[in-house]
C-alpha cells in the first residue's frame, strides 16, 4: 500500500518549520505507524536527506516516549493507545496523513516531531514524590490500603507522562498529567503528609511554566493512552483549594 504523509519538518528549536509531503510505498497493513516512519526514514537516508526525527522507545505503549499529533488527534485514531501501538490498517491509503508535533509553549520543538517535555519533569520535581524512611523494605501488610483507594491510585498511576493531554487541550493545560500524579500519591496513605502542599506546588509550577488553565473540556481524557479519568482533576482542585484555605 502507498500512503501520502504530510510531516512537520523543522531543523531546530529556533528554525521555522513547515509541512512537507512524502509518499511512502510498500507499506503493509501489519506495519505499525512507527515502522512506517522507519521505512520513510530509510528511504530519506538513502536519498541523502535528513530523516524525520521522532521520539520513541519501548514501542509497546508503556514508556511514554512516543507521541505525535496524527490528523489533529494526539496519538492518532486508536482509543486509549499510544502512537507506537497504531497499525497501518487503521489508516485509509486514499487520504493523506498529517503528522505534527505536540503544540504548547512549554513544549518547544527540538527537531521535526520531537518536542522537549522537560516541563513535565519540573512539575514532578515540585512535589511528585513522597518523603519516607528509607532502609529495609517494609513488610507487605505493614500499611493496609483500602481497596477503593488502591484502585483510585492505581488507575491514576498508569499515567506514562507522554504529554498527549497537553497536546490535545484547547488551553494547552497539563492539568490531567498533574492530577494523575497527585491522585496517584494523594490517594495512598504514604502520600498523605504532603498531600495538600504537593497539589499546591505542582499546580503553581505548571502555571509558572506557561501551561494553560483547565476548563474541563475533556479533550485530554479522550486522547489519554491510559484513560486517566477527569475525576482526578476534581480531586486535584479539591486538594489545591484545601491547601489555599489551610495555608499549607
Amino acid at each position, binding site marked *: 500500500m502507498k500512503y501520502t504523509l*504530510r510531516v*512537520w519538518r523543522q531543523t531546530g528549536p529556533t528554525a521555522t518549520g513547515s*509541512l512537507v509531503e512524502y509518499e511512502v510505498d510498500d507499506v503493509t497493513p501489519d506495519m505499525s505507524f512507527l515502522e512506517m516512519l522507519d521505512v520513510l526514514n530509510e528511504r530519506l537516508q538513502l536519498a541523502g536527506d535528513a530523516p524525520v526525527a521522532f521520539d520513541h522507545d519501548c514501542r509497546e505503549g508503556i514508556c511514554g516516549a512516543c507521541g505525535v*499529533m496524527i*490528523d*489533529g*488527534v494526539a496519538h492518532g485514531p486508536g482509543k486509549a493507545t499510544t502512537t507506537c501501538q497504531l497499525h497501518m490498517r487503521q489508516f485509509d491509503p486514499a487520504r493523506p496523513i498529517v503528522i*505534527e508535533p505536540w*503544540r*504548547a*509553549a*512549554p*513544549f*518547544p520543538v*527540538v527537531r521535526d516531531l520531537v518536542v*522537549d*517535555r*522537560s*516541563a513535565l519533569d*519540573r512539575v514532578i*520535581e*515540585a*512535589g511528585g514524590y513522597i518523603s519516607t524512611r528509607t532502609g529495609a523494605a517494609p513488610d507487605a501488610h505493614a500499611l493496609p490500603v483500602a481497596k477503593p483507594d488502591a484502585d483510585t491510585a492505581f488507575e491514576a498511576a498508569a499515567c506514562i507522562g507522554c504529554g498527549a493531554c497537553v497536546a*490535545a487541550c*484547547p*488551553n*494547552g*493545560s497539563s492539568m490531567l498529567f498533574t492530577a494523575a500524579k497527585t491522585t496517584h500519591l494523594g490517594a495512598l496513605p504514604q502520600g498523605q503528609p504532603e498531600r495538600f502542599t504537593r497539589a*499546591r*506546588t505542582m*499546580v*503553581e*509550577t505548571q*502555571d*509558572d511554566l*506557561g501551561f*494553560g*488553565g*483547565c*476548563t*474541563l*473540556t*475533556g*479533550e485530554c481524557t*479522550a*486522547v489519554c493512552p491510559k484513560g486517566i479519568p*477527569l*475525576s482526578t482533576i*476534581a*480531586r*486535584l*482542585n*479539591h*486538594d*489545591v*483549594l*484545601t491547601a*489555599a*484555605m489551610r*495555608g499549607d
Partner: protein
Amino acid sequence: MYWTTRPRRSYRGRMAVTSPAPVRPEKPVAQGFPRRLWASTVGKKAVMAVTGAILFGYLLAHMIGNLTIFFGDIDGYGVFLRRLLAPVLGYGGLVWVIRAVLVLAVVLHMTAAIQLARRSARARPVGYAKRPRAQGGYAARTMRWGGVIIALFVGYHLLDLTAGVLNPHGVDGQIHANVVADFRHWYVVAAYTLAVVALGFHLRHGLWSGLRSLGRAPSRSAAAALVVALVITIGFLSVPYAVLFGIVR
C-alpha cells in the same frame, strides 16, 4: 517548601543548558487566602464557580419571578420585591443590594474568564495545521463566546425591561404592559431565544464543571446539569412565547 522547589541558583552557570524547555521563573509565593486563590489557575476557576453559583441562584429566582405572569400579578410581584426588608433598607433597597452583588459577581467571573482565556492563547502560540472538531461537548467549546453573547444580551435586557429605554412601552413599574409590548414583536422574541439558548448551554457545562472546579465530582452530575439547564431555558422562554402566541395579553 522543599529543596526541589527552591530556585536552583546553585546550578546555574555551572551546567551547560542544552534544553529549550522553559525554566520556572523566580517569583515570590502569594500570601494570604484571596491572593493565593487569584494567583492560581485552579483558584481563578474556583472564583468562577462560586460567582457562577451566585449568578445561577439569581437566575433561578428571576425565572420563578417571571412565572408569576402566568399565576398572578407580576406588577404586584415587583412591588413585593421592593417592599422586602424595606424597614431596614428602605423601599427598593434590597433590589439595589442584589444588583451590587450581581455586578461584583459578573466582574469577577468575567475577569477570571478573560485572564484564563489569554493564558490559554499564550500556552499555544503555534496551532495545529489540521485539527478536527474538538472531542468535548458543544457546551464546553462555546463557553467563552456563549458568555460574550450572554453579556451583550444582559446589556440589552437591562436597557429594555429594567431601564425601559429600548422598550416599546417602557413605563417604570408596569411590568406586565412592558413585557407584552416587547414580545408581540417576533424579532424581540428571536433575540431573547438566542440569548436564553446560549445561557442554557453555558449553564449545562458551567454547572457540571463548576462542581469539579470546587473539587466535587458527584455521580450523575452531567444528567442533573442538563435537566437544570433545560428547566431554566424553558422557564425563561415560556414568557416571550406565551406573549407571542397570545396566551398572555
